[in-house]
């Protein structure tokens, strides 16, 4: 456990350093690699930047789930993004308990927050099950469409740890 922790923080250091390079380096990069001892971080960009013509998007289902912006999903990370622009609330009312807290496990379809727009309360639901790792906006924060709200880790990962 201690070893593991140390390893993580060493890796965090590597990532932070790599991040520093990314944010200061001029122009588009191809690859960044940071190594320390047996640890290394390497970031590489795809060859082609140009994206091909899009599929017709004119009439998607209303329940379409927005892609989160600025946070990448991965096998280990589920992101719940804002399905509309509005004010983010974690509970039904100031006195109520939050729908979810960090550490909670949520089911698919379970309500995790409210976004209020034009006095209308819109439920935000989890579209996949998972364990809540982080809640990004604060209660009452304005959020825009696609803004990441919750970071979850898949239930599979969690149960394997148990």
């Amino acid at each position, binding site marked *: 456990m201690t070893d593991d922790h140390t390893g993580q923080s060493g890796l965090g250091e590597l990532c932070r350093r790599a991040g520093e390079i990314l944010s200061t380096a001029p122009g588009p990069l191809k690859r960044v690699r940071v190594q320390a001892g047996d640890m290394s971080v390497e970031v590489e960009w795809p060859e082609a930047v*140009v*994206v*091909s*013509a*899009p599929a*017709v*998007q*004119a*009439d*998607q289902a*209303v329940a*379409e789930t*927005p*892609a989160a*912006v600025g946070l990448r999903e991965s096998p280990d990370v589920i992101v719940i993004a804002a399905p*509309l*622009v*509005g*004010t983010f609330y974690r509970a039904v009312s100031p006195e109520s308990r939050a729908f979810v807290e960090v550490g909670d496990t949520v089911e698919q379809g379970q309500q995790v927050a409210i976004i209020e*727009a*034009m006095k*209308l309360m819109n439920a935000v639901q989890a579209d996949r099950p998972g364990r809540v790792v982080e809640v990004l906006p604060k209660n009452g924060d*304005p959020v*825009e*469409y*696609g*803004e990441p709200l919750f970071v979850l880790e898949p239930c599979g990962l969690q149960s394997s740890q148990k």
Partner: protein
Amino acid sequence: MFSTVLIANRGEIALRIARTCRELGIRTVAVCSDSDRESAVARFADESICIGPAAARRSYLNLAALVTAALQVGADAVHPGYGFSSEDPDFAEICEYAGLVFIGPTASLLARLGDKAEARNMARAVGLPVLPGSSKPLATLAQARSIAAEIGYPVILKAVAGGGGRGMRVVRDPRDLVREYAQARAGAQTAFGDSRVYLEKFLENARHIEVQILGDGHGNVLHLGERDCSVQRRRQKLLEETPAPGLPRELADRICAAAVQAAQAVDYAGAGTYEFLVDDEDGFHAMEVNCRIQVEHPVTEMVTGIDLVREQLHVAAGYGLSIRQEDVVPRGVAIECRINAEDPRRGFLPTPGTVREFAPPAGPFVRVDTHGEPGMRVTPDYDSLLAKVTVWAPDRRQAIARADRALEEFRVGGPGVCTTRDFLREVLEHPVYRAAKHTTALIDEMDMY
């Protein structure tokens, strides 16, 4: 003046509005759909907020999202641009309800002028000539048949809730009326959520002349001259110019005066356009009113030197107009060419794709309004306008030569992307256009050979 304006639109007009706001020291907030996050206006504006997915219905047409965004960023006014919800009375009303200034006419005036049958009646009430037709939405097919028989074919069926040239059907033969009436109603329902249609006499060879007006909402209305928008495909404008060529000045002045008279009668506030059909035999006929900034407003700006968006902001902020009629002194000729991502050889079908090369023209007396840049994607979500190239010159011959030079210079294209550039150069070359004898039938006639 306003401190923050939310621009409830996209594309070139959003950027154009943001430019004037910046010059007036107003903070600008752009809205964007998920697919427009990297757009020119999102980069230009002081702030940008994503209001929904690519589909316009869920972003740029989503009134709740627009107003929520405006409140969230602390805007005190909303500029609706053109198209989308710019003439939607509900939008004006919701803004007012939320304490936001809607930069345009009042909700009630939008409602009255937005009903095209009602607008006809209003025009007639102030003494403007209108084409013979139904004074109310058609109640039955029998009524349509009887009115059409009375005024004589050809007739044109129009959606009451339509506008901007959309939702129209010409009927040349009485036997086609049943079919066209049914299709017009169905089309109007699909396009505008309102199946009501009306009909009027159709003029085969008319010119589309419109008048730019500005009103302060207190009975003061002035006009900024007329525009000829007769070069149309599928009743959509493709090239506009001012002053109207080949139109007797006396007739043009009468049309301008008529527009001012009609706008005064409704205490018009802001920028608006009164559209007319002009034919040689019967003079001019009032058609409809566009209660917003118009796509083709740059031609008027170039000959008058007046920034129309600036006047819109002045009026909406309660400052009144910054100019009087005597300050409007048109000079020379301006022509606007719309570069659309469309294929003229396939009935002007939009051609989505990636615009790999995008180098607009520049230099003396050329203005380009565009949100385009190399690598931009043209999606079927939005309209196909890539850029407006507007030129000015002391006279029409020089303006045509300059427009042709500018279009030739415009390098634009990419895999799958066709544009109207070359077709517009054919229009500029066309002897009927050069002689200023063209009507709204010009492009159909060009297609024929």
